[in-house]
């Protein structure tokens, strides 16, 4: 190992520069308070806060999680303090850190999204908005925004109109053609795409014969999601030139690198925050070391550097 100047880990997600590509994923770090006791958030590229809605939300009744082989299910039900309380009570603490704060937002109608986006457009210290579109549109028969290109376009455009901040759309798996969905978000005005959110899963308690989650099924996250997320990112990369943020199952440096090689300019760590809470800050160091060992001066060299095999 040669002694060289530290690699520059900075990356650009569209117009937003991150000091490094490691972010914390929405729903796995609350609003940064508790995790801030374990990890210096200023060492990370960014933190995406728990999905915010216009009003506070109580969430689903317990049992809200279940373990699966190599992963977990959750059905938190998007419990959150609401956008006002976030801005008032949570954001001041987050502003203390030298990192990017991304507000994950959701709603039950297009108007909800637009209203939350408009409120956060004014909020100092929120650097980007990320739309969680894995929620049912109650005005359109409960079909999830993220599975229907038309609705996704509409909700993205509405949020786009409500804010001048960078707008990321977080895609849901579980669709036949993710490229179509990605293009709908692009055309709706997204600045970047995050992929992916949890995929639906279920587990059953064989003694009680009841589903393990109160909601029957829930969102599957963790290591078992990794190959699915990498594949979907690959498909999205083919469909749109937008900057991509890779999410799903990351718990090793190698996973970060895989996402970046496929085409992500940054990544988010989710479930790993639960079972290895200091992984995110550790992997920043590991990434710097890897770049030095591989004489990589800028991570841009890595992003999308996938070598496809010859056809044959």
């Amino acid at each position, binding site marked *: 190992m040669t002694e060289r100047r530290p690699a520059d880990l900075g990356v650009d997600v569209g117009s937003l520069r991150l000091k490094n590509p490691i972010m914390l994923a929405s729903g796995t*770090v*609350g609003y940064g308070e508790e995790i801030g006791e374990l990890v210096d958030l200023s060492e990370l590229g960014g933190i995406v806060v728990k999905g915010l809605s216009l009003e506070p939300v109580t969430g689903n009744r317990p049992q809200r999680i279940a373990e699966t082989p190599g992963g977990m299910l959750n059905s938190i039900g998007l419990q959150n303090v609401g956008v006002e309380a976030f801005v008032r009570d949570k954001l001041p603490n987050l502003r203390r850190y030298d990192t990017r704060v991304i507000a994950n937002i959701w709603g039950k109608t297009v108007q909800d999204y637009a209203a939350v986006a408009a409120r956060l457009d004014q909020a100092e210290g929120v650097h980007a908005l990320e739309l969680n579109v894995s929620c049912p549109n109650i005005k359109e028969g409960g079909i999830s925004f993220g599975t229907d290109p038309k609705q996704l376009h509409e909700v993205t455009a509405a949020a786009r109109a409500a804010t001048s901040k960078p707008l990321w759309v977080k895609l849901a798996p579980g669709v036949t053609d993710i490229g179509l969905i990605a293009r709908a978000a692009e055309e709706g005005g997204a600045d970047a795409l995050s992929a992916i959110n949890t995929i639906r899963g279920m587990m059953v308690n064989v003694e009680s014969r009841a589903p393990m989650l109160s909601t029957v099924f829930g969102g599957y996250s963790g290591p078992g999601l990794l190959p699915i997320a990498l594949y979907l990112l690959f498909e999205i990369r083919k469909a749109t030139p937008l900057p991509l943020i890779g999410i799903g199952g990351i718990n090793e440096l190698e996973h970060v690198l895989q996402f970046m090689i496929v085409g992500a300019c940054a990544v988010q760590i989710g479930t790993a925050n639960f079972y290895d809470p200091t992984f995110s800050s550790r992997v920043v160091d590991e990434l710097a070391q890897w770049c030095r060992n591989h004489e990589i001066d800028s991570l841009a060299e890595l992003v999308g550097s996938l070598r496809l095999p010859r056809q044959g």
Partner: protein
Amino acid sequence: MFEKRLTLDAVRFLNSRCFVLAFHAPEIARAARPGQFLMLAASDGIEPLLRRPMAVYQILESSGEPVGFSVLVERTGKGTTLMSKMQAGDEVAVLGPLGSSFAPPGDATAEAVLVMGGVGAAPFPLFARALLEAGHTTRAFIGGRTSEHLLCAEDFAALGVPVTQATDDGSAGHHGLVTAALTEYLSGCDGPVAIYSCGPTPMMRAVDSIASARGLPHQVSLEAPMACGIGVCLSCVVPAVDEAGGWRYRRICREGPVFDASTLLWEHPDD
């Protein structure tokens, strides 16, 4: 709260299902309060994925200084089975101490009555020590399915805390529920009493009925599946009364595991 890779110092089996894992960890030992817990990794890999919540059982001391802690584990599923195979020298990832702790009775003259079922006994010997140091008369009621499920009796005996035991199958102590023994005891009590309970939910609910009926303060330590243990995943919630007279979810890992029982809603408000 500290996130550490600790070396397992010692393993001691209490019976075929229950064992004590002891760790050297001065910072955690100094910080830990009775009733708090830790998240312990059962493996370094992805199966099982999540860490397991375990109450602080003992604070280990050397020359009067806290230098370590132990947990008392009952083997029930995948994670605790892996833990039962751990050996001294193994490295274990540990996060803690976490959550709220038992508070001694507000009334300095009150007697503390500790009611526990099965491995719910784990946090109480440490708390009993604190109660005795604070001058509270203390008494333990230990319930279990069989004599194998009665835990910590020796710990209380060593502290001089009187113990009443009950088993469902009559294999040790009273035959029947520990709550029956508790009711009987409380019937003969005059002075102020504060109740503390930890164990299966039906037991804690029954204890709460007994405490409420007598207007006695009651602190409970709850359990729920936990992903993070620090309050960020919102998986471990329990409905509780809120300031405005309605209800809200409270996180067992953060606002709990120890709650004033009067703040909890044993029936879900949506039912």
